[in-house]
């Protein structure tokens, strides 16, 4: 499923996202620990987190994740926004808490398991 479709169906607010919103999302990963994401997230995973500082962009870009969704209507820091544009990392926000958002993602078919 394309990130743009997920964005529309779950009404995520796009903070940063260009053509990159057309990327395929292959699965999902949820964590607030950056090194854990580096160790365990897979390429084109959608990352659900509450961290808002700019290092999330570095991690997402390095792991070639499909994008980042901030939960609880968290606002990214200005540097995070700039970095996301620079590195072309889609950054979206949901007003929902993580548990609920992940549940809805799962319903759409976004899984955290390797197949």
């Amino acid at each position, binding site marked *: 499923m394309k990130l*743009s479709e997920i964005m529309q169906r779950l009404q995520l607010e796009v903070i940063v*996202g260009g053509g990159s919103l*057309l990327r395929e999302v292959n699965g999902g990963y949820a964590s607030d620990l950056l*090194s*854990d994401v*580096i160790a365990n997230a897979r390429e084109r995973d959608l990352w659900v987190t509450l961290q808002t500082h*700019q*290092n999330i962009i570095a*991690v997402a870009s390095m792991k070639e994740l499909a994008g980042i969704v901030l939960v609880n209507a968290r606002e990214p820091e200005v540097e995070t926004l700039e970095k996301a544009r620079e590195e072309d990392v889609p950054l979206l926000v949901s007003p929902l808490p993580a548990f609920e958002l992940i549940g809805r993602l799962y319903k759409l078919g976004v899984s955290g398991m390797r197949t």
Partner: protein
Amino acid sequence: MPELEITKIQELVYELWVDDVMHKDVVTVTPSTPLNNLREILRDNRISGTPVVENGRLVGIISMEDFIKWLCEGSPGCAVADRMSRNVIAVCADEPLIQAINKLERLGFGRLPVIKRGTKEVVGILTKGDSIAGLLKKLDIDYRQAETRHPRSSHIFEDIVADRSSLIFEYDVAGGGDVKRGGASASGLKTSLMRLGIDPQTVRRAAIATYEAEMNLTFFTNGGLITAIIESDLIRLEVTDDGPGIENVDQAMRPGFSTAPDWVRELGFGAGMGLYNIKTCADRMRLDSTVGVGTRLEVEILMGGKREVVRDHATVTA
């Protein structure tokens, strides 16, 4: 293949922002503008609606439709404030154009006022026509860029005549927990390696190892130096600092072990996975540390995929 064409256009829509295409010289009225005057304002500017602004802030929107309704009711004497819609839906100037187009479609509106994020200051107005004009302009720019693109330096090693050659990149990393610049070296290295045409898998491993090393320097030292030596078949990373040094290297290598203070963990670091992640990316790894003197980390990443099971070599000098 019609599907492919749609995708290309979609892609363009996603690469434009509202402030790329909006009208910046927007005609506005105030709540106290008499409705009698609205006809001329709409006619003279050839518009079918306009935002209502008070003290620079958006308070409503009034359209031709509101005006016609008013005429049908026998045009009683009243001001814009009595007839405008107060529940205005606006878009932010830094929103992606696709989001704004979706809003236009969903709501069936002909125009949306554009405001600055955070304030309600009106900075422009967006119509469907603007979106199309913006797309055409973007197509033109993309086309020109494609014509003038710079060649990549991917053949640099093939072009050099020598028995051995290497490229050296150095990155200074500040210590003291300055997260703001965190990741700058890893990101710079990644970009450079991609430009050299090195395979993405190798680039990724080098970038991750560099990132983790960089974060260690940031949080646990007074700063240090990352040197990346790129040869035709491998990337060697050398990371050095002058203290405080690691007390127990075996322990530090163990996944999950961390000495990070709470504020570091709060930022999402300190999972105790740093050195472990480096090891996962490396073909060879060596970590030497002396408490009070400093730490030296050497990592080798072979190009074309990881081949060796890492036997990390760690030494501690008391």
